[in-house]
């Protein structure tokens, strides 16, 4: 997140840094990776080097990229559902301490039940596999958003609550004009966690309840490559996955920056 309070405040140099420093760091990682593979003479079928992986990425691009798209679609739908669901449930839960007490065990149950264990049930009752995948991925991604959002909603400045009460704000108005914006710093962390989590959840869901063949996602390609002992291809799939994860992280960070840059301590540079 650019630290300057106004877009005008970001110099071109800073903008470059934001792109280049991570790339440089990643490049350094690649060099270390390649070096380890060379130095310890690790065979390709245990740990392929970046070169092998890059070749696989090129040669298998015809299958890998479409698979990435499938996974990304599930990811984003799960993330969207988790956002809506998590925020909605959090709003309901903070309405009353009773509701919170009554509902929190269920949210925990949803969080800790292994997808693999309940995937069959979901498969039985979901109308189709895509929906089942979405449900699985959603279940994984929504708890961080819920938790952060609950904390955010509870952390609203009491003086501002007084203010809204005084001016006769309806519940809805308090929610939209006060509680939601005040929760943004928390919600944005939830979003950042859930971003990566829904990607990995999409993968796990595909493992557990996955589609296969033509319309299948990265998880499937990954498992297939692993099964076929084609480690370079597996690492190519992993690289795509990590790339997607970093992109999603960048995106969620950008959203957080947009939401907070003008006012919140975390995004505003300290004046000095």
């Amino acid at each position, binding site marked *: 997140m650019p630290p300057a309070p106004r877009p005008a405040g970001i110099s071109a140099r800073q903008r470059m840094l934001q792109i280049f420093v991570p790339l440089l760091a990643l490049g350094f990682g690649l060099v270390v990776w390649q070096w380890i593979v060379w130095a310890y003479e690790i065979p390709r079928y245990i740990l392929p080097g970046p070169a092998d992986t890059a070749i696989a990425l090129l040669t298998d691009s015809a299958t890998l990229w479409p698979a990435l798209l499938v996974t990304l679609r599930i990811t984003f739908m799960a993330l969207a559902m988790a956002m809506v669901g998590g925020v909605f449930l959090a709003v309901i839960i903070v309405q009353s301490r009773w509701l919170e007490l009554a509902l929190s065990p269920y949210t925990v149950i949803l969080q800790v039940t292994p997808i693999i264990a309940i995937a069959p049930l979901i498969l039985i009752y979901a109308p189709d596999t895509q929906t089942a995948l979405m449900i699985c991925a959603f279940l994984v991604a929504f708890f961080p958003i819920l938790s952060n959002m609950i904390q955010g909603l509870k952390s609203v400045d009491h003086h501002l609550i007084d203010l809204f009460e005084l001016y006769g704000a309806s519940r809805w108005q308090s929610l939209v004009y006060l509680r939601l914006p005040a929760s943004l710093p928390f919600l944005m962390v939830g979003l950042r966690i859930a971003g990566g989590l829904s990607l990995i959840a999409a993968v796990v869901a595909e493992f557990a*309840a996955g589609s296969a063949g033509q319309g299948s996602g990265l998880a499937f390609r990954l498992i297939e490559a692993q099964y076929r002992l084609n480690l370079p291809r597996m690492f190519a799939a992993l690289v795509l996955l990590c790339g997607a994860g970093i992109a999603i992280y960048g995106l969620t960070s950008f959203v957080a920056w947009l939401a907070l840059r003008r006012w919140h301590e975390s995004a505003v540079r300290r004046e000095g």
Partner: protein
Amino acid sequence: GQDKVVFGTNWLAQAEHGGFYQALADGTYEQYGLDVTIRQGGPQAPNRQLLVAGQIDFYIGGMTTIDAAAEGVPIVAVAAIFQKDPQVLLAHPEAPFGDVASLRGASKIIMGKDTFFSGYWPWIKSTFEGFSDELYEPYTFNPAPFLADPMAVQQGYVTSEPFEIERQAGWAPKMFLLADYGYQPYSTTIQTGQSLVEENPDLVQRFVDASAIGWYNYLYGDNSEANALILRDNPDMSEGQIAFGIEKLKQYGIVVSGDAETGGIGCMSDARWSEFYRQMTEAGVYKAGIDLSRAYTTAFTCKGVGVELMAQ
């Protein structure tokens, strides 16, 4: 001294691993100078990768060394315990399926990913009309989705799933043994590293022989000690399940049939390897031109070791 050997299985201890447990339990491995540790597999246990990484000396696999040959991974199959693949497709008894070809009418076919990639699924698709990936649903080792849908079909081992399904649901599923329809891979092969084969063929030979003897004794001798070991490693296994498994192994000639009848348990032939490779290449699983000699070796089997024990 004894040679330390780690043997990784592909699943939790069960009758399908009986011969190995037998050889461990009755001291056959010890007699052959082997100090064997069995490391059981599980749903996602990475035993095969550990073989590749050299942390396991022998591993129960299928025909996957063909993939290894294609990828230059130095592992080979040195014996094939199961002459017939015990894989079956299961259907509800009242479902209108008469043979494998008619399963195209199923609402879904529930199977493992391995089956889907390089098992009988590509073979079925290329051999029979009307099968497509739309039918596939992943097997999560829970038969409930199968039981819930009368038109569903599920994979299984002839030795295990039918037993559980009958016990739980109260009805015996229809079974289609793929081996009966021309699907001819070896199964429960013993895989090991190329380097071990080259540097210590004697150890490999001893392991293969002792295992074969173990299997004879397990199927035709007193297997109570082996079963006790299995039950210890996998407390959820039941005596009934084991008995059922052994019975089916015998009934379908899974272990002893074909070349094994004369060559002994574990016997493999070049002809079957090439035929399977041809079939599956046709099915699009493998690319052409893989050097099969890097996938297996028949140097350790078909020597008639233990055949005499069958007479017990």
